[in-house]
């Protein structure tokens, strides 16, 4: 990186007329909604954390599904809503995370709870390598490219006999733990993963990197000529989203105790993620959480409808995009922000 020596830089700053010297600029980054909303969230997480003491195993298993949906929606939003990358191949990392857990905990005999983050890190590593391929494509070609990568990953994984080749495998690593405890542990891990992922994205978006990502999403060329290292920032997001999806995949498998290539590598996951983000609100942190809850409730409430379920989900998706193009969270018109990432300028002092 070339730096301009201080002298020249000082000269550049003198270019500003004298009025600029008078008083600074005051920048605010959060409002009362953030404090109230943050408080509500802390209480909600505390209640959820207490739940295993008072709820049935079925409820906990169900809610793990919700937590992984929140993680998946948040990751897709990070990619598309902040990084400007529309991927339909995130199932690559969901599958790799799930299989990674089975391989590390089952085949290698590592502690399953340690295996979950390790599997996710492996996803990040593979994503970093494949980004050099995927980033040669843009727009629609990038989207298709990610799907192709997901298919290749699936085809490679089903060559591995240790994880059951084409027929899948069971996760036996938990067999030493009493099911009641196992379910509660997995529940807490899933809740923890969801909280960490959402908080991580929030902190990322509040940081300099978040500023760069938003600029890249809005106008990549202008971002580049304003000094933003566009490719590096996108690669970081691509890798982080793979880690997050890998975590979700591992949590899903820890919850169901079974991994099956057809379902864990299913492109349906991408459709679900898109639905969650579009319903909730693209480019907001709150949106995917709301979208995940809506999807979860629909899934629960409409389970008896069989194939009609998809029709209902489709109609709802169309209705929301027509009536609330910015998603449900978009209805707040930016007046409400539980996770404020922007900058408001106040009067100078």
């Amino acid at each position: 990186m070339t730096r301009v020596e201080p002298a020249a830089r000082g000269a550049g700053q003198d270019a500003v007329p004298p009025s600029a010297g008078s008083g600074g600029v005051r920048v605010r980054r959060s409002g009362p909604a953030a404090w109230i909303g943050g408080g509500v969230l802390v209480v909600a997480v505390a209640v959820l954390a207490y739940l295993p003491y008072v709820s049935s195993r079925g409820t906990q298993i169900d809610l793990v599904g919700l937590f992984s949906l929140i993680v998946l929606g948040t990751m897709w939003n990070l990619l598309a809503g902040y990084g400007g990358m529309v991927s339909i191949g995130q199932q690559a990392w969901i599958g790799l995370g799930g299989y990674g857990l089975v391989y590390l905990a089952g085949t290698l005999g590592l502690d399953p709870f340690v295996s979950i983050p390790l599997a996710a890190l492996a996803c990040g590593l593979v994503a970093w390598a494949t980004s050099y391929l995927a980033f040669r494509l843009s727009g629609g070609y990038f989207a298709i490219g990610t799907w192709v990568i997901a298919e290749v990953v699936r085809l490679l994984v089903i060559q591995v006999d240790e994880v059951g080749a084409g027929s899948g495998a069971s996760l036996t690593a938990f067999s030493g733990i009493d099911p009641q405890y196992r379910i509660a542990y997995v529940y807490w891990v899933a809740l923890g993963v969801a909280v960490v992922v959402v908080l991580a994205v929030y902190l990322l978006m509040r940081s300099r990197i978040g500023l760069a990502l938003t600029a890249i999403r809005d106008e990549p060329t202008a971002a580049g000529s304003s000094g933003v290292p566009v490719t590096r920032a996108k690669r970081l997001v691509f890798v982080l989203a793979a880690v997050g999806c890998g975590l979700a995949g591992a949590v899903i498998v820890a919850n169901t105790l079974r991994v099956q290539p057809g379902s864990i590598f299913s492109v349906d996951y991408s459709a679900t993620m898109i639905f969650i983000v579009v319903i909730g609100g693209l480019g907001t942190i709150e949106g995917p959480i709301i979208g995940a809850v809506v999807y979860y409730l629909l899934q629960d409430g409409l389970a008896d409808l069989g194939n009609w379920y998809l029709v209902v989900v489709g109609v709802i998706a169309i209705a929301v995009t027509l009536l609330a193009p910015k998603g449900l969270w978009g209805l707040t018109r930016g007046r409400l922000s539980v996770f404020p990432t922007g900058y408001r300028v106040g009067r100078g002092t």
Partner: protein
Amino acid sequence: MTAPLLEVAGVGKRFGRLTVLDDVSFSIAPGEAFGIVGPNGAGKSTLLNVVNGVLRPDGGTVRFDGADVTRADAAARCRAGIGRSYQIPRPFGGMTVFENALVAASFGGGHTGRAAAEAAHRALETAGLADAANTPAGSLRLLDRKRLELARALATDPRLVLLDEIAGGLTEAEVPALVETVRDLVRAGVAVVWIEHVVHALVAVVTRLMCLTYGRVLAVGDPHAVLADPQVVEVYLGSTIAGDDPVVEET
């Protein structure tokens, strides 16, 4: 004679069969104010794209501050000190005006925290946008979008600013203020390359002028000499200057 800040040598650029730049060479001293004129489609904006790294030339080299930057990307050149405003504004539409400038100050200017906020604020004040700091950039009208282009370019703390038709759309009464802003820049030691169809504004600031036609340098030198050059008058200025009717065009 000091070493040139920017050196463009033998640059060529084609889009398919269309040759847009053909063996263009010129150089700019630190702090110099340099103007570019030429008819529509002459390749002026393309030349700026090659200088700031948005486009790679097919041939030739671009040197900035002694270093060959022909292969460097736009972000690296911006951090090295090349700021750029676009003829067709490219705002970060989902961000506020302040955030737009903050991106440039943080990444192009390399500032963090308060220093970044202050650099962004100063750039907005210079461009006359400080009062619109909290406005979403996507909702600005064209004139303010042009101002935002200028603000963002300045927020990167450039040593060389490339201005692409920032006066287009201004009323005659607004031009002097813009001319003063660019002059202030030059006084502060920033080199300026300014493309403008509003020739009288240009001539009020620049000390050298280049006329580009069909991707070739037709004339370069003292502004008045270039404008008086019969060839220049014929291909371009005949229509503009003779009628003393500055072309205020919008793309």
